[in-house]
């Protein structure tokens, strides 16, 4: 990077992972740009104080030629809140709820996690029972207070009881509070003043019906407030030290981002932002496309679904065992990662090969890392099979030992054949010498590992899509993470996917997602009404109120660009247990003003019917349609990614034997160059990039675009033949 970088306003995305902190700078002046313009940087993470790694990485990135005055925004994704919750390192919290409902957390939904498990236990309550206090204050479903407001004397008694619990934070969640936000917040404010502690009102965080879920959300928010406040404060100080006075955004679980001030006020909205980053990046880079993101890392592979380029959100995500009722980008684990252990499973009548769920971890890592690991991982199978070149792994910065991979895999073959019925993976020709025998044994294990891993991932992928009424065939894989490009085509062959994109910044794709995540805020209000002409005025009023709320919020975000306000409702046929979110109205933030949003009953019912037909396979024109929850979201995109046009080329750098389906094949090896090489590469081939190795099997052709993205397409003849 000798030449000076072009003068831009820059938007910097930062993703703090367990091992590495990734940074990506992209042009941030609102114009369209190519992924090739992105500058990526990686530094080791600093778990004791993640903001330290952020400062180091940012300083190094700036030193590569970005004038600090040109930094328009820094957008930061963090899993600090998530990790704190999962590891139980959270503030000591107390809960105030309405009289008679102290056991709301104990009872939860009285549901067992598994059928055939006598030891299954429901989620441990998020705070112990003795930290839950009752107050004689509640509201009807219409939001009317039952009885008078909490008197000063009762408040004093409550405060005394709270002080006995000695909490660091307090959450208030009253019966009916979702319909009486102001009243619940008033009580929270009085408690905050009396206790001098952060007090979170559940109705302020997310005013939706569902007492267990809403209470849990408020407690999670309260529990991570001190930690997140401290972290964000430290982050601001470190940025100031570097001279960065740009706007700071924090990415959120819904695939968007919010100002750091917003994140501090409601930290729970950040907890699942990490995995959402890759899905957001795909949404911004390839709008309008049906995609499945495949993030294949060390311990597992995660997928996200984008229908028509929009991430599929869910309101039934969990953090640990706790429900998260706010809309978040749906990300599902589907199976093995590169570090998943390849092992023999002898629990049944015949030994079978399994890949995962255990992982060799970063230390010692796969056997090929030569760090003392003897258990083979899926990565060892790639190395043994010639898919990964031990000398060029990660751009040659990290030489691997193929012989150790082979030995480790061969030991699994021994385990599979040991005294049980003979298994075919252990077949070997008579008279093979010892090393040849080991190599042959390892061949069989690696072959089986690829098939078993692909079949397991495919099974989960199919069920995730089937739950949305979708099948894989029409989707494009967007494969990233260390092993995403390596395994994507094998998985695609298993499920019938015919198109794969391996993005330019596959190794820092989540940071890219942070850099380009739109500013976004969701709000919701429970309405519970029929959708008909005579309820339209009331519904429109709620819409206007919610629109005003998100626009008011947007004004605090220091965003200049115009965005979109989307109003939607969760609709269902009367008596139906599940709802569908249907758009009511959508308009530019520039068009909002004196006119209230226009909601049309007919058009809404039509959209509901269309969606219902697609998702559920039927329509009932006679049935009453009910609106349960009205939602508003404001989204402001911060510049567009220019779709890459075909332009990148390949140069052949070598050739080697690979085997990924039980047959050894002579494959060509290629690197990407901007100009002057071949326009496409036909499989069997391997494309080696600095951060990942991409397998192009027989029947697939790879091309590249000027954004540095790799496109794999399955040849038609091959699928039919």
């Amino acid at each position, binding site marked *: 990077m000798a030449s000076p970088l072009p003068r831009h306003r820059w938007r910097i995305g930062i993703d703090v992972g367990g091992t590495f902190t990734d940074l990506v700078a992209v042009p941030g002046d609102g114009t369209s740009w190519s992924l090739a313009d992105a500058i990526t940087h990686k530094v080791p993470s600093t778990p004791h104080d993640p903001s330290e790694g952020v400062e180091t990485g940012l300083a190094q990135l700036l030193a590569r030629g970005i004038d600090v005055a040109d930094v328009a925004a820094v957008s930061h994704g963090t899993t600090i809140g998530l990790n704190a919750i999962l590891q139980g390192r959270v503030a000591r919290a107390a809960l105030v709820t309405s009289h008679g409902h102290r056991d709301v957390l104990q009872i939860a939904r009285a549901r067992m996690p598994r059928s*055939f*498990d006598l030891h299954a*236990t429901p989620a441990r309550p998020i705070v112990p029972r003795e930290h839950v206090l009752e107050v004689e204050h509640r509201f009807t479903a219409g939001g009317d207070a039952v009885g008078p407001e909490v008197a000063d004397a009762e408040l004093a008694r409550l405060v005394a009881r709270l002080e006995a619990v000695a909490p660091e934070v307090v959450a208030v969640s009253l019966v009916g509070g979702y319909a009486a936000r102001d009243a619940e917040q008033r009580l929270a404010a009085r408690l905050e003043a009396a206790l001098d502690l952060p007090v979170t009102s559940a109705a302020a965080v997310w005013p939706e019906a*569902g007492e267990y879920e809403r209470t849990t959300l408020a407690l999670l928010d309260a529990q991570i407030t001190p930690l997140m406040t401290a972290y964000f404060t430290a982050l601001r100080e470190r940025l100031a030290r570097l001279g960065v006075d740009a706007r700071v955004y924090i990415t959120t679980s819904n695939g968007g981002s919010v100002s750091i001030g917003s994140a501090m006020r409601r930290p729970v909205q950040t907890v699942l932002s990490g995995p959402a980053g890759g899905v957001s990046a795909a949404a911004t880079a390839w709008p309008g496309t049906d995609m499945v993101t495949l993030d294949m890392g060390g311990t597992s592979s995660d997928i996200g679904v984008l229908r028509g380029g929009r991430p599929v959100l869910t309101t039934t995500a969990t953090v640990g065992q706790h429900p998260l009722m706010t809309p978040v980008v749906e990300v599902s684990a589907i199976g093995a990662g590169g570090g998943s252990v390849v092992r023999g499973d002898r629990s*049944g009548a015949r*030994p*079978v090969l399994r890949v995962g769920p255990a992982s060799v971890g970063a230390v010692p890592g796969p056997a090929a890392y030569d760090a003392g690991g003897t258990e083979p991982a899926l990565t060892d199978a790639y190395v043994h099979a010639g898919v990964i070149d031990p000398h060029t792994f990660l751009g040659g910065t990290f030489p691997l030992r193929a012989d150790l991979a082979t030995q480790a895999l061969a030991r699994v073959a021994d385990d599979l054949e040991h005294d049980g019925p003979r298994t075919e993976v252990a077949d070997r020709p008579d008279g093979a010498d010892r090393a040849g025998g080991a190599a042959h044994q390892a061949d069989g294990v690696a072959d089986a590992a690829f098939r078993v891993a692909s079949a397991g991932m495919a099974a989960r992928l199919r069920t995730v899509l089937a739950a949305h009424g979708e099948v894989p065939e029409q989707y494009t894989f967007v494969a990233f993470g260390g092993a995403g490009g390596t395994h994507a085509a094998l998985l695609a062959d298993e499920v019938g996917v015919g198109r794969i994109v391996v993005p330019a910044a596959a190794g820092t794709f989540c940071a890219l997602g942070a850099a380009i995540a739109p500013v976004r805020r969701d709000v919701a209000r429970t309405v519970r009404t029929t959708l008909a002409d005579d309820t339209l005025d009331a519904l429109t009023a709620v819409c206007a109120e919610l629109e005003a709320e998100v626009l008011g919020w947007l004004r605090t975000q220091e965003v200049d660009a115009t965005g979109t306000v989307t109003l939607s409702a969760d609709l269902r046929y009367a008596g139906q247990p599940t709802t569908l979110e249907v758009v009511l109205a959508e308009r530019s933030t520039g068009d909002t003003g004196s006119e209230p949003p226009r909601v049309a009953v007919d058009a809404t019912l039509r959209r509901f019917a269309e969606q219902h037909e697609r998702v559920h396979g039927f329509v009932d024109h006679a049935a009453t349609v009910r609106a349960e929850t009205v939602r508003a979201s404001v989204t402001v995109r911060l510049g567009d990614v220019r779709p890459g046009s075909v332009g990148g080329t390949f140069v052949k750098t070598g050739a080697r034997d690979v085997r990924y389906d039980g047959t050894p094949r002579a494959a060509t090896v290629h690197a990407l160059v901007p100009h002057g090489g071949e326009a496409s590469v036909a499989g069997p081939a391997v494309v080696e990039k600095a951060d990942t190795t991409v397998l192009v099997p027989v029947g697939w052709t790879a091309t590249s675009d000027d954004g540095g993205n790799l496109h794999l397409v399955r040849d038609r003849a091959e699928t039919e033949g």
Partner: protein
Amino acid sequence: MLTTVEKDVAQTRLQAAVEEMCLTLRRASRSLYVRDAADFACAVADLSGRFVAYPQDVGVSGFVGLDLTPAIEAATADGPLAPGDVVLTNDPYLSGGLSTHLPDVHAIAPYFDGDELVGYGWAFVHVSDVGGRVPSSVSVLNDSVFAEGLRVPPLRYVRAGTVVPEVEAILAANSRTPEANRGDLHAMLAALDTGRRRVGELTDALGPAGLADVGRFAREQSAARARTALRTLADGTYRFEDFLDNDGVSDVPLRVVVTATVDDGTVHLDLTGTDPQVEAALNMVTFGRAHSWVVTRLFAIVGTLDPAVPLNGGLMDVIGFTAPAGTLLNATGTAATGVRHATTSRVNDVVSGALVQAAPEVLPAASSGLVVPVVFAAADGSRVDVVEPMVGGTGAGTARTAPTAATRASPTCRTTPWRPSRRTSPCACCATPCAPTRAAPGAGAAGAASSSSSRRSPTARCSRAASSACAFAPGDSRAARRVR
């Protein structure tokens, strides 16, 4: 000859296929039983009539050990099944015990590779109503199967891809909810189509014998794992008995007795000594064979000790069963079966009571034993709201099985948020407390485990005391008053 890897991979694909069948069914149905209570399931069987793959996470788990053979034999007495046929049945007696009460409608589709029959797809749904004396067809007071609604012997509902109109007409005429039923039946057909495609992919890859090979392999694997798990139980013979309070007609308690013999990873359940069948809907039709629905506690023990065990018919290979004809667990003639789950739930408790002696660290004590659906109905019958299944708590156990307010009697059901129930019923939910801890004598480690905690744990028998704390104020949701 298929390799182990091929069979294993095919098993994984079939597992995805049966879950996809379930999701197809759920998507296409709109009845509460399917969507909310998840009272349905789908699976794939090979020619043995036993399941090769069964869904792990969706639908009813307890039917994993069903055998389709008797129902298929009954349906094919006058000729073999052809491609595109679908057999329907709901009658416990005429289906050879495939169905366990009339609202459970079972569908079987033969799957072919060309002209060669290779296996079957199966689906069942608890439909809303099949006629009979009462709405929803289920009442403990029904005194014979004829009071419980339309009996459908195994017959062709679909012939060569076309629904038989006469059958559909009879079904429609005998239900209070014909449209909902038709939707559920067609949802099953959609699921069976999904299964047909996936099994077709399997036989395309592995040949017509592929499903049988995979089936044998899958069942042997699971049977071996089940046997390994059950070897945790000490060999011996254990006896336990418990009672249903009464049969709803008289005050006489109904005795359920089990003598469980554990022998090297197999368990034989002998129900001899259990009371005779009754003139109430508490009977279970087993034909004296080990029936999947009666032995679910054994599946639960296996699943507890080996959580990853694949569910398929192989789990039945370690289970033996005896029940004399004419008793509650082997009803004959025309005895009513609508509320058979109350009886099998008690079987679960007596099996636990017997086997806790063989493995006290594995099995918890008996649970509250039942689920009470809380229903608010207007006096004039104009409005009925099923609010929620009110559950009792779990039984006490060791530290690992600490009791909770949730239930194992019906692990997949869940409570309803207060607000919707308040909104749809003219009634306020004023309190939902757990009852204080009541560790029964003899709960031993369990009682100690929960009481040694400095906290007041949720309790061994804990219920959502909605009924005692709520006042019913007809006509005015604002007028609800707390009962003190």
